[in-house]
């Protein structure tokens, strides 16, 4: 082991060595002592023994090296986090002397941005390719990320958004665009007010009013948003596109799922000037592709947030503009893989318009339209065909089994993004699914990608098959004939597969076990139930719910033999425990299972013989007493099915008084409105059946 000397020259040489060299980054990361020294340089640089260099030069190069190794392996980033690199950078930026040196300030800002971008990819939610990280590392990264958005930390770097140095301000805008991905962080950034303004507010406040509070003002608005708007509108041509790109990405991050910001940006000023949304829209026609994409993403997030506020009120002109930009980038042979990947990601974000969970009005208001309209619009304009052509061009089907080993990362990322886009487009509408399966013929490609080395590509391929598996005809024909259904099932059975892939395959299995699926018998005879039971012990609530979902579908219209087989694996005691689970989603699935078990008389008999009258009654009481309407509804259906049993079986309703009381409460209680009426109607129908 050698002791690395820290000088300006040695750091420059080191920087050139590690750039684009993962193994060099890893080797450096293993030198823990050096990493700590490097980080320490930011605030306590050694005396420079070189002529014509200073301690500030050492700090600048140290910042550059930190930036370079931030995007290295998990070990490199972990080493930096454990050396408190983030805190050191922030501490350095808070030093007025550092702020007086433009080159140092911009180097530190860049390092902060790069480190933050690397951290967020570990903590998630990730916008880019899926990677695998250890739980401990993820925990360390989360801790670092939370520090970055602490109030005192924001006071250090957010003011630099308006710095006179373009490089510095752009770095902070890029940091916002990259690192702000959750509602909590979005809020703190939007509500942040410069310290001087806060002090001014305190001076004018009366004694008993809360001081130091940070909140979105109603008169002067968000300082960060206003500063970003100013950056977008910058007329300095030299740095224009660079700054605009960064500011647009930051604006997009802040507008995501944020109706107040979206509304403010879309508002037309009283003086008749164009709204900020209109200004951003105009930038979708920029000559610079990066700016087009960033503007498209920004427009997407604004109109998406607006649609959340006013369902069905998507700006059609803005939507069409975005589609046209994405379409052009996707079909252009001269566009880089990176730009095409960004286009696919923007498309996925665009397609999640309206994709917020709606209330039970779906059941009460018939024939209502939902967000699939956007998917249809995108499909009608040829975007699906273009994305399909793109992914076909980069995915060989007639190559050796190890075709993906030496693939470039950019190609892998692009494939993942394109497949996710296809899955999103094809998720709801049958015309689109049929086109994907029958005409565009992508199923062989999906099947091929199930075995890809990249987790992200495997997940995306599973999601594509999932989208198609929501169609009984496609299950019966394409997915069976192509072997894709069973190939996915083999991935589902892999015990060492990534949990994200398992989650995606489980969603498909839920669809493939339905009674109209020819694959159901094959899966049942190939270890389906043992595998489901193994997954039911997962700590992941989504996977546990997926297991119950699969069992529910499996039991629908099933024979008594199948019911007996399922319950041999699931267990009646365990089912009763699930009925009492604290999670209403789990409860709901458990009652669906009970309902399907009791769909015929022989099933009712089987249920009573196995559970006993008292336990059945207890389950009914639990369900009817639930605060979840979905749980109560399924319990009512279960109760209605039991009314087809023998007289003795029906009598449990009358011999267990709590049940009658709860039924009465269900019918009498609840809020007014269609949802409550539908629920009461459902319960009433089944109660009348008992009588």
């Amino acid at each position, binding site marked *: 082991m050698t002791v690395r000397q820290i000088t300006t020259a040695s750091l420059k040489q080191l920087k050139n060595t590690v750039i684009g060299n993962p193994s060099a980054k890893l080797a450096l990361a293993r030198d823990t002592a050096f990493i700590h020294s490097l980080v320490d340089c930011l605030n306590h640089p050694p005396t420079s023994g070189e002529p014509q260099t200073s301690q500030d030069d050492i700090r600048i190069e140290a910042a550059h090296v930190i930036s370079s190794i931030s995007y290295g392996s998990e070990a490199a980033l972990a080493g930096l986090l454990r050396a408190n690199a983030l805190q050191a950078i922030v501490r350095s930026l808070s030093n007025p002397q550092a702020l007086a040196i433009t080159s140092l300030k911009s180097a530190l800002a860049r390092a902060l941005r790069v480190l933050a971008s690397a951290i967020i990819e570990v903590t*998630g939610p990730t916008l880019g390719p899926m990677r695998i990280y250890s739980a401990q590392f993820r925990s360390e990264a989360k801790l670092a990320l939370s520090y970055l958005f602490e109030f005192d930390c924001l006071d250090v770097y957010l003011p630099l958004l308006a710095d006179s140095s373009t490089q510095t301000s752009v770095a902070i805008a890029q940091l916002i665009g990259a690192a702000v991905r959750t509602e909590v962080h979005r809020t703190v950034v939007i509500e942040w007010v410069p310290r001087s303004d806060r002090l001014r507010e305190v001076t004018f406040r009366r004694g008993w009013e809360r001081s130091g509070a940070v909140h979105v003002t109603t008169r002067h608005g968000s300082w960060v948003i206003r500063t970003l708007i100013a950056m977008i509108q910058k007329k300095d041509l030299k740095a224009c596109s660079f700054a605009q790109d960064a500011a647009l990405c930051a604006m997009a991050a802040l507008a995501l799922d944020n109706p107040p910001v979206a509304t403010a940006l879309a508002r037309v000023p009283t003086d008749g000037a164009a709204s900020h949304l209109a200004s951003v829209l105009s930038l979708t026609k920029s000559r610079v592709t990066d700016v087009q994409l960033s503007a498209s993403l920004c427009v997407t997030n604004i109109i998406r947030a607006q649609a959340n506020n006013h369902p069905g009120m998507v700006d059609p002109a803005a939507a069409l503009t975005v589609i046209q930009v994405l379409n052009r980038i996707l079909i252009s042979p001269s566009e880089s893989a990176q730009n095409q990947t960004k286009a696919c990601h923007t498309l*996925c974000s665009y397609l999640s318009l309206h994709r917020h969970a709606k209330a039970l009005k779906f059941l009460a208001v018939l024939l209502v339209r939902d967000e699939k309209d956007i998917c249809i619009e995108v499909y009608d304009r040829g975007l699906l065909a273009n994305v399909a052509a793109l992914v076909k061009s980069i995915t060989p089907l007639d190559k050796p089994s190890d075709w993906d080993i030496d693939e470039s990362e950019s190609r892998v990322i692009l494939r993942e993004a394109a497949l996710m886009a296809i899955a999103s487009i094809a998720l709801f509408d049958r015309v689109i699914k049929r086109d994907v399966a029958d005409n565009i013929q992508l199923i062989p490609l999906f099947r091929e990608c199930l075995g890809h080395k990249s987790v992200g590509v495997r997940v995306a391929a599973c999601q594509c098959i999932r989208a198609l598996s929501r169609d009984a005809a496609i299950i019966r024909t394409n997915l069976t004939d192509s072997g894709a259904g069973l190939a996915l099932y083999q991935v589902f059975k892999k015990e060492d597969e990534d949990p994200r892939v398992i989650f995606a395959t489980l969603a498909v299995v839920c669809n493939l076990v339905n009674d109209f699926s020819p694959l159901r018998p094959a899966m049942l005879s190939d270890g389906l139930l043992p595998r489901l039971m193994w997954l039911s012990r997962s700590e992941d609530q989504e996977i546990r719910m997926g297991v119950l979902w699969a069992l529910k579908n499996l039991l629908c219209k099933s024979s008594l033999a199948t019911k007996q087989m399922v319950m041999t694996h699931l267990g009646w005691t365990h089912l009763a425990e699930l009925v009492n689970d604290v999670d209403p989603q789990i409860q709901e699935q458990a009652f669906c299972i009970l309902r399907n078990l009791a769909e015929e008389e022989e099933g009712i008999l089987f249920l009573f013989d196995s559970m006993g009258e008292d336990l059945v009654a207890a389950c009914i009481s639990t369900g009817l007493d639930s*605060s979840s309407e979905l749980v109560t509804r399924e319990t009512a259906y279960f109760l209605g099915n039991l009314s087809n049993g023998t007289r003795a079986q029906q009598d449990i309703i009358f011999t267990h008084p709590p049940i009658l009381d709860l039924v009465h409460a269900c019918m009498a209680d609840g809020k007014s409105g269609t949802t409550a009426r539908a629920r009461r109607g459902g319960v009433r129908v089944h109660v009348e059946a008992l009588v």
Partner: protein
Amino acid sequence: MDVPRSLPSSPPASVAPPQPSESFSIHTTATSPKSSPAQQRSTSDAPTRGRPQRSSVPTPVPDPATDITFLRVRAQRHHCLYPGATFQGTQKSGRNSYEVNVTIVDVDFSSSFLCGYLRIRGLTDDWPELTTYFDAEIIGSRYGFLTQKWGANEQEDMVHWQRFPAFRHVKNELRRPHLTMPDRDRGAVFMRWKERFLVPDHRVQDINGASFAGFYYVCVDFNPQSPGANIRPVTQSFPLCAEEYGEGDLLTSPSPSKLESIPIGRRRRDSSVRRGGRGTSIAPRSPPPAATMSGFYFHQNSEPYQQLSLSHVPEPSSSCFEFR
């Protein structure tokens, strides 16, 4: 990891960040920011009923890179049209009558789509029982009454649709160019069925003596007034010419002489209207008649007006499946 809690002091006031000149106001009182989709899926789907809430289960924020949807596609039910519903009856072709069963597999009103199986008995000697899978286009705002494919022109469309009494109640709402109509509950549902493949073996293409190259015009009446009144008799033909309906929305009613088979005084239907009324007597209400499913098979080379007449088979129990 050691994270120092003491943070560096903020920059002195003398280097306060410049204020952007333009004012920008954000009002947060209109709506609160949208909660995360996972929270919405669990909370908006589970409104409280005024009872003490259970302790909330922390729901992880879904990673948009791993799951592409936060919405459920719950099985939809509209009267007798629901997954698993069965209809029983006959298909008449000339003097022949064949026993027919229809089973609904999936219903998606938001996509104007339905699918199921149609099983017909005794059609040919080689195939004593034939089952086909069919897709259905539900007529409404997405699919109009004009077929514009499968060899059916506008005149043939109107001739067939006019055979359903329920069609009279909707024809004033139709909009060009495809004769669509707003989606709402009308007491009847109109569909076009296209059989796609045989079940269980979808690879079988040719059947000696039978064909599913055509399609069905179908009407499901949820409130049939009387048996046999859901289809105009085949003997009463009224070749509808183009001048009987113009470019406007209106389709003229048949002449009074053709209304003899249709109950007098029939009004615009609403499925919420129940015969007998509520509370008019203390005696139990008689159950409403089973919904009827009527249809006509059409193919240019087939015998015209092969008639499908089915009734819903009520089920005392229910089961459910849901696509994930």
